[in-house]
């Protein structure tokens, strides 16, 4: 039985990672979905205020951050793919690259927050900024946790690469659960920002 070779018949459906991580991921998506809806609802009650405040946001920062996270997700996907091989070569490079993108996101975020705060815009400035800080802040927290997850993935990748004897299917399987779970979490962080960007920065 090879988890690596393409099968002629349709591959058996499998849950990426494990069921438990999807309890968390779907749960988190549910909550952020609620956040998005609450935002648009309250926005509808005071469009003028929200539109004015939104104009002070830097769309370029938002877009660059989206590109950073998309790139990082691609690197993670490449790393996950490499970890499925009997010999692992590229994963120990891909995961750090993903981390670099995450770092880029963080730097832009910090610059953005600093600019806003020095301009006197804080969490209690008005309703729009309240949502802006809380949602992007909570998302940023998820990114930071995600960086920890990426460190863990990098660690597993390096262990796998060190194992110069071809890895057997049991080892690949054990890694698969951990790697896919961690990767799925990171992709969730990416997709949440994909919605936050137009919602906060672009939607007029």
């Amino acid at each position: 039985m090879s988890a690596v070779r393409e099968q002629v018949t349709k591959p058996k459906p499998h849950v990426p990672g494990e069921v438990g991580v999807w309890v968390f991921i779907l749960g988190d998506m549910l909550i952020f979905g609620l956040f998005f809806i609450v935002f648009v609802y309250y926005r509808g009650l005071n469009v003028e205020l929200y539109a004015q405040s939104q104009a002070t946001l830097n769309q370029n920062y938002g877009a660059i951050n989206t590109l950073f996270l998309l790139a990082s997700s691609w690197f993670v996907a490449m790393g996950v793919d490499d970890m499925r091989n009997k010999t692992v070569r590229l994963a120990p490079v891909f995961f750090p690259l993903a981390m670099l993108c995450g770092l880029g996101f963080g730097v832009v975020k910090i610059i953005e927050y600093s600019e806003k705060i020095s301009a006197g815009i804080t969490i209690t400035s008005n309703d729009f900024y309240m949502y802006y800080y809380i949602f992007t802040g909570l998302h940023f927290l998820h990114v930071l946790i995600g960086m920890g997850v990426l460190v863990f993935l990098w660690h597993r990748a390096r262990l796998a690469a060190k194992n110069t004897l071809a890895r057997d299917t049991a080892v690949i399987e054990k890694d698969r659960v951990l790697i896919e779970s961690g990767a799925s979490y990171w992709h969730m962080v990416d997709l949440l920002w994909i919605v936050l960007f137009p919602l906060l920065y672009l939607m007029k």
Partner: protein
Amino acid sequence: MNTKAQLFCAWCGVGFLILFSIGWWFIAGYIPPMSPAMSANEVAAFYQENTGLIRLGMVITMFSAALSAPWVAAIAVQLKRIEGEFPALTYALLVAGAVGVVVLVVPPMVWTTAAFRSERDPELIMLLNDFAWLFFVMTFSPFFIQNLVIGLAVFSDKSESPVFPRWVAYFNIWVAILLIPGGLITFFKTGPFAWDGILAFWLPFAVFFGWFVVMFPLLLKAIKQQALLGESE
């Protein structure tokens, strides 16, 4: 094997939910939560118009809070099965659970103090009311720790027939995170992050309630599994 004692403790969790709802929600009328934007006179009026019901409701609420103690203990016993001889996470759960009882017991006492002499200066009534609400909704930390250590303990369970299924770990981490928004109420008097807001009150409240509903059958199952394993030895 003290299965009966453990089951009793687990059922105390159900008792907590029911009595808390009866006292705080149905009798004292604190659901839906009053707005932090209310004036002192409005707050005082609430206490003056509902004095008897508030007093009665809070006695029941205060009592129900203590039922969360045996509930937490029942979970701790199961965590100890996972951890064995050096149950650090179990101890953390017990300590956090004890503090949790305080967080649930003190606000009813403060609310009932407001109702004790409701003819007082409205500013003083509002002060007591503010304190109780903030203490009640904002102090998410001991509950956060409770859920966190349960999650960590379940993750660490490497046995062949785990005490709790692995997804329970993820579930508890999720619950822990969702209690956090309560911490924001100190910044807002209106909106979704005020103490009556959808994201700072209703969400953590629903999640906390839901956590009991999910954990209770799992806990019963774990206790019964433990009894079966004990008998087969």
